[in-house]
């Protein structure tokens, strides 16, 4: 990849990811995501349970996450359940970056071994 295309990609990525990162840049919302990360959809009542947050606060935070499509609601009887959808975060590029990070740590160990 030439430096020029790399710059272009980075600028495009930034544009795409900026609103998502802004939505994630909040401890409460990160905590909500961590709770939903097991894949189980939860109601607002369930998400409020065991926290110091009010239902209104949870609703507000969920709306921010819904706006960037990290979370969506599914109707279940009379109430809505919220489900995590990490697709906006996880594309091919982030997958390759994960593999790449694995290589970095493995190569660190290889270097230590051969330079011992």
């Amino acid at each position: 990849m030439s430096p020029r295309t790399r710059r272009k990609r980075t600028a495009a990525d930034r544009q795409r990811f900026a609103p998502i990162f802004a939505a994630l840049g909040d401890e409460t919302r990160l905590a909500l995501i961590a709770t939903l990360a097991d894949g189980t959809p939860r109601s607002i009542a369930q998400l409020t349970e065991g926290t110091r947050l009010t239902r209104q606060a949870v609703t507000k935070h969920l709306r921010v996450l819904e706006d960037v499509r990290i979370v969506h609601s599914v109707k279940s009887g009379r109430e809505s359940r919220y489900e995590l959808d990490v697709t906006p975060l996880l594309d091919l590029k982030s997958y390759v970056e994960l593999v790449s990070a694995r290589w970095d740590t493995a190569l660190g160990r290889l270097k230590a071994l051969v330079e011992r």
Partner: protein
Amino acid sequence: MSNDIEKRIELDAPISRVWRAITDYREFGEWFRVRLEAPFTPGQEARGAVLHPGYEHVTWKATVKEMQAERLFSFTWHPFAVDKAVDYSSEPTTLVEFRLEPLAGDRTLLVITESGFEGIPAHRRHDALLRNDQGWAQQIVNVKEYVAAHPS
């Protein structure tokens, strides 16, 4: 091409030493954290137990392609094939190549490339990332760094 991984690393060790570290199955296992059952042989599948904490249930598998002494070692594999319940064997693999070049002063340049990510099914990418706590931790670090650098 843009989805390929390329790593270049200069090692303060002679090329023969580096070759041994990447192609001797015991030495490979030491830095790659896998207990391989037998030496690498071109055309053969190498297997072993993953030694990463939390992934001990996983059998590491790779098919050795080429072994050109002190020049090229390559294999294909399923990156992050970590779920015992999933049969990855019908899915496309990526190709990993280790290329060695001697440098002055008994040093060695190691270039590793991994290619073929386009073939990995989208749902598998998601699985790998979701299941990988390191991946999540990294995402969070990315987020924090990004947010710190771009205060609204």
